[in-house]
């Protein structure tokens, strides 16, 4: 199946010298839910911005529906925006405090010059699905709860019927008692509309539950990629293993020592070797390439699963 969007060897270096992404290759299967995990500074947000055409890649190729993104953007930014929408992390903060929910919900159709009546009918349909009462329409964002503001942001993103939705931490800051409902609604709409969904999150139980593929990033690189179920039951990369062990109730917590190194001067060799519990001499000098280990793709000289051959070489 052709991926809905694809990155091939994408790198992003900021003028400050910060290498935010390094040689990232990644395909988002059309109509599927992919999860992106990693800690602060791993490059998750930059990756989302590259996919949305908000940040140009310094190297490599970004494809959307098989077409290079720069060409699509040159043809028309608005047309591309109708295809790819982003749910920002601070949903409440992304809503103008000076506009009522009615105006906020009508704004996407106005910007894109869609027929007003038809678009509003669609908005009303989405509001019903999202459990947003029409009584809320004349309120301002600060007058509604965090969960409601989040649902307004979802309606704004989906009214354009995009093919791709990138959700950056869709539940961050939401109380646990309401996060489940929001995710249920998002997944219902995803299935109904055949959306390709990329979810970036710190919340590992959420990623495990709602995605079919998971991508793990560390310091701007993809360190592991594979089917969610396999990756969570038998992680191949030591970083994935440590990250997964922080989940509540996970057996045998692996405590990593040291801090995440600066992305300005990433460590030589494997970028994770400074914190890796099983780093060896080779890891300090030789940068590992992505390779297959069992069903996953992993960037490690000594993966925890699959092909045991490299261990013998050590």
């Amino acid at each position, binding site marked *: 199946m052709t991926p809905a969007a694809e990155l091939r060897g994408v790198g992003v270096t900021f003028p400050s010298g910060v290498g935010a992404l390094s040689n990232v290759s990644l395909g988002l299967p059309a109509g599927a839910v992919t999860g992106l995990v990693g800690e602060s500074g791993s490059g998750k947000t930059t990756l989302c911005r590259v996919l949305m055409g908000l940040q140009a890649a310094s190297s490599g190729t970004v494809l959307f529906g098989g077409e290079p993104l720069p060409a699509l953007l040159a043809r028309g930014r608005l047309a591309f925006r109708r295809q790819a929408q982003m749910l920002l992390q601070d949903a409440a903060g992304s809503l103008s405090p000076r506009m009522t929910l009615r105006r906020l919900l009508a704004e996407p159709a106005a910007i894109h010059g869609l027929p007003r009546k038809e678009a509003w009918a669609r908005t009303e349909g989405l509001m019903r699905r999202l459990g947003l009462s029409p009584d809320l329409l004349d309120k301002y964002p600060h007058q509604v709860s965090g969960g409601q503001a989040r649902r307004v942001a979802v309606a704004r993103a989906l009214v354009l019927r995009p093919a791709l939705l990138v959700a950056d931490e869709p539940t961050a800051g939401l109380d646990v008692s309401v996060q489940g409902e929001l995710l249920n609604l998002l997944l219902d709409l995803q299935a109904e509309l055949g959306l390709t969904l990329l979810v970036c999150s710190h919340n590992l139980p959420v990623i495990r539950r709602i995605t079919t593929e998971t991508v793990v990033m560390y310091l701007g690189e993809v360190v592991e990629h594979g089917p969610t179920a396999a990756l969570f039951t038998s992680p191949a990369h030591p970083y994935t293993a440590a990250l997964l062990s922080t989940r*509540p109730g996970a057996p045998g917590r692996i405590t990593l020592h040291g801090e*995440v190194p600066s992305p300005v001067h990433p460590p030589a060799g494997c970028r994770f070797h400074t914190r890796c519990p099983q780093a060896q001499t080779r890891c300090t000098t030789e940068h590992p390439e992505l390779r297959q280990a069992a069903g996953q793709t992993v960037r490690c000289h000594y993966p925890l699963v699959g092909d045991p051959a490299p261990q013998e070489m050590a």
Partner: protein
Amino acid sequence: MTALLRITGLHLDARTPRGTAHILRGIDLDVGQGRIVGVVGESGSGKSTLALALLRLLPGNVTRLDGQAVMDGTDLLALPDAAMGAWRGSRIAMIFQDPATALNPLFTIGTHLRDVLRRRQPGLSRAALRTQAEAALRRVEIADPAARLRAYPHELSGGMRQRVMIAMALLAQPTLLLADEPTTALDATVEAGIIGLFRGLRADLGGAILFISHDLALVADLCDDIAVLYGGLVVETGPAPAVTTDPAHPYTAALLACAIEDGGSGRLPSIPGDVPDPVTEPPGCIFAPRCPLVEARCRAEPQPLRPVSPGRAAACWKAA
């Protein structure tokens, strides 16, 4: 168990444009000597306000603060301002959620630590100050403490700054340490290390730790006792393992059910409805509008916290 701190009937109201907000509606809570007590609740439950009320660091719109918070025979809420000032940072210390804003950007880490030491032991020599400050950094597992003492807060990562905050709290040697979401701003793998430090802190501190968090699983893992807050009230208290394996209050049960299980499938769990509006004063149980077990009696009568079994209490007439 002797209580180091006994909070009874703590009420706090604040003036807002929409009317009087009832932030704390009568908190009852005992903090046992030597215990780590977890205070869990969702946004608006009053957990941070509770900590600030104990330190009396309250904004100007507070219109009512009643009840008692007795520690070592002294009611914190009745202390004169000057005496309260002397308690802050010595007998009661606090670790805030965001270590980036809790440290002064103009001063080095060394200055922060030495200030705490001088307050505690005036007249310490420069050499003694340096030795003790370095030892404190080593205690919180910061490598190369001598160099770190010369660093400014912005030169450290978030996890390192929170370690510095913990080192400051250690040097203050408080009887009661308040920690308000100390790991919420940190990454998961960094959080694991900080939680490890808290476990060790209990032995170093003679007193108790009040650990405030929205994360029930984290609190269950770290704390000895749990108090579950909802809408400005404690709805359940008890030893952590008992509360999390056999909750007595329907809210605790619903909150536990919201945890996303490995290997689960189908709809994700949630609690229908919204948290209570602090401006309203419901006549009955604060959780009644969202409670799956609600009956007419729940809506009519307030539900005070009552003992349900040795060491455990719940604010629900149905709890047994």
